[in-house]
């Protein structure tokens, strides 16, 4: 009986947590899976978004989810120009140079955050979102529900954008063959910057959501990048439904193993499972090949 209860607890909080992970990976998945831009700095962009959300909340006290309407566009613009002016230069380099390039950016951005905000943790505690719904042994924290809902919304929108719109088709084209896209009249530099802008906006959303859930400190950045990579790659690069699935799997395994008293091994279990999935499906769970 106790076992069953625990399992239920694990699964519910795994689902909520998993959706947050999916959101975290969305921006990364978009840039690597669709635009083929290795975007390891994603974790640092999320970190900066967390600080931005925190600072905004600290200064004005308004609900951070309202802040998204300010932060996401700003992040889009920053992502767009960061790509146009800097990252685009790395695209002509071999892929592993790109990886190192983006790790360099990750390090730089993370320590820039430490420079401004110090290594101390900060918490964003939005007014009125501190309660949780408790149903017997199950509990749902408002902040988590909000994060999960936003996550679903963002991922569904991205999915529709990628599969149903001209923009999605163009982004795929630019990534799969820039020369081919150019001769078809696409402005590749602009479009891939748009993709990175969208990825940054996603990072802003996930940064805000994460900031309401977890304390903010610079060392988080690397961790976030790794989670984003694992979830995207597990779900299938370029596939937003894959991100959801990957996030849920990772989230549920972690939560269930924690609730069963194996929190210390939780990540090892997840990693082992992900590795096995790779062997069976060496391109992730859901293939991004379209329509």
């Amino acid at each position, binding site marked *: 009986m106790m076992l069953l209860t625990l399992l239920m607890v694990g699964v519910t909080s795994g689902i909520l947590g998993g959706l947050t992970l999916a959101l975290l990976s969305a921006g990364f998945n978009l840039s*690597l899976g669709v635009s083929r831009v290795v975007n390891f700095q994603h974790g640092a962009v999320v970190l900066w978004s967390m600080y931005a959300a925190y600072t905004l909340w600290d200064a004005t006290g308004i609900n951070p989810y309202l802040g998204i309407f300010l932060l996401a566009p700003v992040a889009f613009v920053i992502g767009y120009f960061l790509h146009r002016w*800097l990252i685009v*230069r*790395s695209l*002509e*380099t*071999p*892929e*592993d*140079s790109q*990886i*190192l*390039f983006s*790790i*360099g*950016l*990750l*390090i*730089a*951005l*993370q*320590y*820039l955050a*430490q*420079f401004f905000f*110090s*290594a101390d943790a900060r918490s964003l505690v939005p007014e009125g979102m501190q309660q949780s719904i408790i149903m017997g042994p199950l509990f749902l924290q408002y902040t988590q529900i909000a994060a999960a809902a936003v996550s679903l919304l963002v991922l569904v929108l991205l999915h529709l954008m990628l599969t149903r719109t001209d923009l999605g088709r163009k982004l795929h084209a630019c990534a799969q063959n820039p020369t081919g896209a150019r001769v078809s009249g696409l402005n590749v530099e602009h479009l891939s910057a748009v993709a990175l802008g969208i990825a940054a906006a996603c990072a802003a959303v996930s940064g805000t959501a994460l900031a309401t859930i977890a304390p903010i400190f610079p060392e988080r950045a*690397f961790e976030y990048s*790794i989670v984003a*990579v*694992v979830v995207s*790659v597990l779900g299938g*690069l370029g596939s937003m439904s894959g991100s959801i699935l990957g996030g849920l799997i990772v989230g549920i395994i972690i939560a269930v193993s924690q609730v069963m008293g194996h929190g*210390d*091994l939780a*990540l*090892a279990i997840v*990693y*082992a499972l*992900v*590795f096995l999935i*790779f*062997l*069976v499906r*060496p*391109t*992730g769970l859901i293939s991004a090949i379209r329509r």
Partner: protein
Amino acid sequence: MFSKLTDSFRQQGAALWLSAAVVVIVAAVAAPWINPYYTRVMIMGLMCGYLAASWNLIGGYAGQMSLGHALFFAIGSYSVALLARLPDVPLIAALPLAVLVSVILAWIIAAICFRYALRGIYFAVGTLLLAEIARILVINSDTLGRSQGLQIPNTPGMQNLSFSSNLPFFYIFLAMSVALALASLAVERSKLGYDLVALREQEEGAAALGVDVSGIKRFAFVISAGLTCIGGVVYAGLVRYVEPGYDLSLSITLIMVMGAVLGGRGTALGPFLGGIVVVLIQEALILLGSTVGTTSVSALAQMIYGLFFVVILLVFPRGIVGQVLYRRINRKATQLSVRTIQKAS
């Protein structure tokens, strides 16, 4: 062998190799007289160079980005620490043991990964996951000292990798590096070298020319793992303390990747140069930070470290040595074309 070497001299630029040789000889002769701190920095530089060059076999020549090499490094260092707990066993005995374990493990990993066609980012993430799994297991294992790590008592004697100064470690890493550089050079012009680079560029194209793609990848991975493990053994002898937070972390793997990519992946000398540069830059930035000595300045120093990679890779997209060689090839092609056009007109 000799004809291969001379030919590579031409291909890679005799100047590059000669300057490397001069640097090695000068360093070897000067080492006993310099400040022990510089010796230690050189040791770390050589170690990173050596590790980067070991990684380069699979990550550079074969183009399979392994992010799991920390595993093999840790097998090396942990074997020393574990042997140290047995009475009267010379620690050097860890070397064959650890290499054997690494090689077998690498063979299994490679067999699985390449059998199931893990490529590109999937291979990178897959190997990363394996190393992380190992790290978590170590952290939860009492025998392996959990996160507190294991210390290696300083039992005197060469057979225990224990010396009165660090100088011998300098010569050990120097010798290992020189051997590995010459070996890489020889491999580069051998069938193995051609097969490796070919399969990196185009697996199907290589298979059509009789290259056993997965077999060669596996071979490269195994050798690379064994070499990395040797680095771990010597490292453990130097610092006499092993812990999962460093020996088995992504950061030690990243040092290898950074060194190799920065210096020029798939070149014989690049990774050594890259590894040394990475260490020197770190030292220089720490020095810079410590002139002020506050936390925020140290954070800035680290930020510059990150930007350093960004800038270097913008200037040398193929790594430092890689770019030099690339320019050389381009120049040659251009000269050729100018000549043909002159002939034609």
